[in-house]
């Protein structure tokens, strides 16, 4: 099937992301990548757990002194909701409704940006209120590497969505770009999967002690 072929909502295939060989390969390759990402984040989580609250002297702030539940709760809700909005985008992609798909992706990007804003505020706050920096302690290094790596994934996810939206604005949906949008949304869900473990292991368990 020609990737550039024009469709209508009636001729649009049921699984446009896997109709072409390229789409199938992208799908397979992307899940292999996600398996690798799981291992990458595991090593960062393991390092964080081993080095949590390992500070050189008593005047350094510990997890329980710094973390605030309301901020983490807002960030969690933003990212979880953005995961749902990207599901809505893929629902409209499968129904061949390009305009609605774009709208939902833009909402997703907006929520992701809000999340990022809160994360930047959070890091700024830790650095200035607690002098908790990347180099202040092993705890600081492990914390910023883990949470910062997740934040970098959010930045990449946002850039990915924006590039796809800009590149395809006037193009409409076809079998060439449908797998691209699909894979980007899988990446966005994976970012939320990682965040579930971050808010549980780093923040909630950190607050318990």
């Amino acid at each position, binding site marked *: 099937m020609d990737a550039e072929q024009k469709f209508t*909502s*009636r*001729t649009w*295939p*049921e*699984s446009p992301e*896997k*109709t072409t060989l390229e789409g199938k390969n992208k*799908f*397979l390759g992307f*899940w*292999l990548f*996600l*398996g*690798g*990402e*799981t*291992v990458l*984040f*595991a*090593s960062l*989580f*393991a*390092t964080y*757990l*081993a*080095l949590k609250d390992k500070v050189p002297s008593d005047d350094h702030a510990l997890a329980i002194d710094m973390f605030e*539940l309301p901020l983490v*709760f807002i960030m*969690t*809700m933003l990212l*979880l909701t953005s*995961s*749902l909005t990207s*599901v*809505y985008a893929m*629902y409209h992609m*499968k*129904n061949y409704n390009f305009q609605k798909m774009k709208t939902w992706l833009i909402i997703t990007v907006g929520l992701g940006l809000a999340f990022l804003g809160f994360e930047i505020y959070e890091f700024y706050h830790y650095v200035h209120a607690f002098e908790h920096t990347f180099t202040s302690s092993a705890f600081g290094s492990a914390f910023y590497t883990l949470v910062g790596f997740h934040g970098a994934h959010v930045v990449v996810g946002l850039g990915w969505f924006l590039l796809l939206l800009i590149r395809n604005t006037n193009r409409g949906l076809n079998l060439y770009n449908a797998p691209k949008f699909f894979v980007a949304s*899988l990446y966005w*869900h*994976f970012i*939320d*999967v990682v965040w*579930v*473990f971050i*808010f*549980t*292991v780093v923040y*909630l*368990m950190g*607050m*318990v*002690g």
Partner: protein
Amino acid sequence: MATQQSTSANPKVNYEYRRKKAAEEMRKHVTSFALMIFVTLIAFIMVLAGFDKTFVYPVLLALAALQVVLQLYYFMHMSHKGHGAAALFLYSGALVAFITILTFLTIVWW
């Protein structure tokens, strides 16, 4: 392998069936989203309530695992057919992840 393309002799019937199926799946997604919000709320409330950590830790991890399963199987469509390779890759990654964390917590930084 079943073809992905329309197979019904009457394309209108097939189209409407697919629309209905997609809408039904979207409702499932919204339900799983509501469940995830609920699970998250329980996790935060448990920490606020200040229970003992030997009780809170395992429950928090179980709630996180439940939420991730919902995310993977509904939002990321792993419940659909043709996700055998996806599951193999992800669970292999998860196995290495588990061993890595176990190692760091028991041997490396003992």
